[in-house]
């Protein structure tokens, strides 16, 4: 028997990086939201590396922020080190990465959640979702509490039927020896949801006092750290460095000698692991000629001595992990505080989801984060906010939100997941984005703040600031495109000093800025704006002007893509009624149920002829409907 424990608009199951964003977004859209976590001390816990951001991922953090999410704000308040990556490359691929203070991050996030209006937090292990008349109506916990809601978001990460493996030791567990969620997994299968088994892993943590840092190279943070969030005003300048060391032939010999003991190679692990996050065993086996691998030593926080040994993810037995560490310069006497382990878990095959992250077969039920086959805190966070926005939309009958591939990395990720699925834990890479020049970290606010404002997740004050910034950029670009600079001595000297060739004739200021050696700061000297512009405005003016040719080209491609995206496929289309479509394509289309012809064309196995036929079929305006319609 269950008891009625309360009624809500939206219930979020899980309080990891997806759950936190989902709950806050839902609450901020005005939905009465309940967050259920099996352990409220582990809110926004980072079970693996102590860092947030990086290429593509860092852009996602900014996108989440521009949509009114919190990951950026929380990391800005708690980081121990901040670095801008790829500064030597173009603006499209620059990205922020922070080293996180894990315990502080948890505290900060927990407080944020606790102070959120409309949001209730409760500890509890969910075992079942309530499905009535084919729709999701709530959840039931192991203590028989029944919570009712119009929509439910499940964000259970790697907990579902989690199994930790260290050498030949294997036991049921979530990450970091938390309880695994077994009943829920079985229950979802009973509901007809297809699950897949994935694997990931984590390296050992060692005590900082036992490391000889003199044998390693220092990796400091930036002198002028930047922030993820557009809300952040103060930066933390007191930073803690990371350290770099390397494996060597002795390390590799230890691995070679003990390979048969690794759970990865003994056949104990059946799940598919991610290629981009291989265990050290994998690296040594697959790239046997490589004499050394990088090992980064990353502190887990300001008030702990635990150090994360990045690069040494492993499922070898604990004593082999110790032997391995002893061969590495600086770690000869390292004391393991926690051993590395591999973890297997159940994930939902993501092609079962609409692009809103709602399950096609069970209206009202959403999934987000690692449960959808992704990996990474940022990927989870990006899905979380989208699921929260859309779950609230469902409950309150508001407009739902789908971002396309030209709007955000979040759009790229979700489109990939629901259209193509994934056969390994999915990680965002810049190469997954066709229009990465448009998806820069510096313009995430320009891309998405407007949307966040309309959703109600961005407050008026911030929106006003944003509008002002946008206006300043436009004004300044307009000004530069009108001003003509004559080849006078002062200007020629500035150009020469920058290493450029002297002007032969008068030139528009905007055209001069297009030269690779001319920065906005130089231009400013000869033609200053009416009043001093903020740094981020100057940055935008420079990027938008300098790379205009490439940006225009990308925009043209986007326009072509949009044409196909705008051709909507009726939800109740009957693919069996379309004669000319090839069998494989038909099966895939029936499974994925693409919303547009554009999405259909990205399904592997659907070829251009099938797309043409689909197009003709839809345009005839005579779509044959499914029988029960």
């Amino acid at each position, binding site marked *: 028997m269950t008891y009625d424990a309360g009624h809500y608009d939206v219930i979020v199951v899980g309080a990891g990086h997806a759950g936190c964003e989902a709950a806050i977004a839902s609450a901020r859209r005005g939905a009465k939201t309940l967050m259920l976590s099996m352990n409220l001390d582990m809110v926004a816990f980072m079970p693996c590396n102590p860092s947030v951001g990086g290429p593509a991922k860092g852009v996602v953090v900014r996108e989440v922020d521009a949509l009114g999410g919190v990951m950026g704000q929380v990391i800005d308040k708690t980081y121990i080190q901040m670095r801008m990556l790829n500064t030597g490359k173009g603006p499209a691929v620059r990205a922020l990465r922070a080293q996180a203070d894990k315990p502080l991050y948890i505290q900060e996030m927990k407080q944020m959640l606790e102070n959120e209006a409309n949001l209730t937090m409760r500890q509890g292990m969910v075992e079942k979702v309530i499905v009535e008349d084919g729709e999701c109506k709530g959840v039931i916990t192991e203590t028989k509490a029944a919570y009712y809601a119009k929509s439910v978001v499940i964000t259970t990460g790697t907990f579902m039927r989690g199994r930790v493996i260290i050498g030949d030791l294997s036991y049921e567990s979530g990450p970091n020896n938390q309880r695994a969620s077994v009943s829920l997994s079985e229950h979802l299968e009973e509901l007809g949801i297809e699950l897949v088994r994935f694997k990931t892993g984590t390296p050992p943590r060692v005590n900082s006092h036992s490391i000889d840092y003199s044998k390693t190279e220092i990796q400091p943070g930036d002198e002028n750290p930047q922030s993820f969030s557009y809300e952040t005003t103060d930066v933390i300048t007191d930073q803690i460095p990371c350290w770099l060391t390397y494996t060597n032939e002795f390390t590799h010999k230890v691995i070679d000698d003990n390979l048969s003991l690794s759970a990865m190679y003994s056949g104990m692990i059946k799940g598919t692991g991610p290629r981009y996050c*291989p265990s050290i065993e994998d690296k040594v086996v697959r790239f046997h000629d490589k004499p050394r691998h990088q090992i980064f030593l990353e502190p887990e926080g300001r008030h702990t001595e635990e150090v994360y040994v990045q690069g040494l993810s492993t499922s070898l037995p604990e004593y082999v992990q110790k032997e391995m560490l002893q061969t590495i310069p600086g770690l000869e006497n390292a004391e393991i505080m926690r051993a590395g382990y591999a973890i297997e878990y159940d994930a939902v095959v993501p092609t079962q989801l609409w692009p809103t992250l709602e399950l096609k077969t069970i209206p009202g039920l959403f999934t987000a984060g690692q449960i959808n086959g992704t990996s990474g805190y940022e990927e989870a966070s990006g899905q979380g906010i989208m699921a929260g926005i859309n779950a609230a939309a469902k409950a309150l009958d508001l407009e739902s939100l789908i971002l396309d591939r030209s709007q955000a990395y979040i759009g790229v990720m979700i489109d990939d997941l629901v259209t193509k699925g994934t056969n390994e834990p999915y990680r965002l890479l810049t190469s*997954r984005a066709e229009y990465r020049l448009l998806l820069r970290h510096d313009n995430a606010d320009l891309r998405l703040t407007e949307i966040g404002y309309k959703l109600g997740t961005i407050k008026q004050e911030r929106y006003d600031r944003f509008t002002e910034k946008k206006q300043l950029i436009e004004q300044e670009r307009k000004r530069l495109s009108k001003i003509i600079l004559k080849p006078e001595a002062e200007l020629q000297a500035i150009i020469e000093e920058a290493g450029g060739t002297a002007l032969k004739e008068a030139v528009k200021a905007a055209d001069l800025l297009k030269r690779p050696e001319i920065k906005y700061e130089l231009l400013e000297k000869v033609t200053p704006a009416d009043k001093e512009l903020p740094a981020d405005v100057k940055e935008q003016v420079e990027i938008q002007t300098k790379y205009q040719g*490439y940006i225009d080209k990308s925009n043209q491609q986007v326009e072509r893509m949009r044409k196909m995206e705008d051709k909507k496929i009726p939800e109740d289309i009957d693919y069996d009624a379309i004669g000319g479509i090839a069998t494989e394509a038909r099966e895939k289309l029936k499974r994925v149920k693409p919303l547009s012809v554009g999405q259909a064309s990205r399904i592997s196995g659907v070829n251009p002829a099938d797309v043409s036929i689909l197009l003709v079929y839809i345009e*005839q305006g005579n779509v044959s409907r499914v029988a029960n319609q």
Partner: protein
Amino acid sequence: MESDTITAISTPIGEGAIAIVRLSGPEAIEIANQLFDGKSLIDVDSHTIHYGKIIDPSTKQVAEEVMVTVMKGPKTFTREDVVEINCHGGLVSVNRLLEIVLAQGARLAEPGEFTKRAFLNGRIDLSQAEAVMDLIRAKTDRAMNVALKQMDGRLSQLIQKLRQELLETVAHVEVNIDYPEYDDVEEMSHQMMIGKTREVYREIERLLEVAKQGKILREGLSTAIIGRPNVGKSSLMNALVHENKAIVTEVPGTTRDVIEEYVNVRGVPLRLVDTAGIRETEDIVERIGVEKSRQVLKESDLILLVLNHGEELTQEDLNLFKAVEGLEVVVIVNKTDLPQKINLEKVKELAADHSVITTALIEEKGIDDLEKAISETFFEGDLDAGDLTYVSNVRHIQLLKQALQALSDAMEGMENQMPIDLVQIDVTRTWEILGEIIGDTVHESLIDQLFSQFCLGK
């Protein structure tokens, strides 16, 4: 309404004295007018036809003498502006015309696209929708089949090699971006990138040169007629050519030199090569002819082996069968007007999978069967004379040109010192375009390359 202008050859290739290149779309008239030396096509009345010349803008030379029909939408097949350029019916001329039109900014139509536009613009009745879909399916499948069949194995290999080089370059840049701290790979510099792209650029340029000579599609299927002297080889050639070019004689060995003639058999372009009879001979003049014959034989795409119905099979005939083993052959038993002495069962046995046709060329009998057999050998089945073999290769040329353009964009970017990750956008584009030629555009392979080439991860 679609926004771009499409074009294709809309008559079966080579058949008939006239071929038509059709354009449809908002710029159809503009494009034709830019190429046309005659009246201004923009000012002429709709549904009128005009004589003039097509000037190739790249050479400023007269390319074709043509009649151009201008039809303004919506009273056209597609309801868009349509221009039809009528030119001489040879393969070479219509192909050149199509290329000029493409270079002027029209896009090569997809299979069935004219019909699709007609449908989408409401020109075709709704009840015909099914038929339109069938048409697209059939035409696309056939185009793909033919394209695959037409694709030279070496071309495909070369494209794959170029793509692999580009892919490695792109993956290199990607790894620099996604794993900025990964120290095992050098940062891709402009200089390294220039070296790699220049190499590929030259290869594509060379391919385009070769494509200009486009063996089968420009010159036809090289076809050798072989047989003992006086079995009717020249008569066969004449029958196919429909005019008397080779010398027909009753004296063995009078056709000594290799003569070439270009014909079109039911949409299959043939370059006929008549050879001196293949046989051992002491005659010095004839021997030169025989050697030439053998040489030609090896290079032929199709061999027509002629036997004499009025004589028994000789050792020389058997030698010929041996010589053509493993090649595309049609066996012709000629002179059925003479009493049968040949053992037809034996001939069929020797011919194995190849067609055996009986003819009396002197009486013009059996020529239809022969043409059908040739056509079937080439198309392998029930295909009619489509323009698809042809177009698929024009398509290759178009794509190669696009690839070259994308690469030169990349090189220009490097000259302007654009960041490497921007330059790489154009390199990736080149890789994608080349993939379209061999039908491989799966984006995922970049990520596969990334993780197989580099040891990455935390």
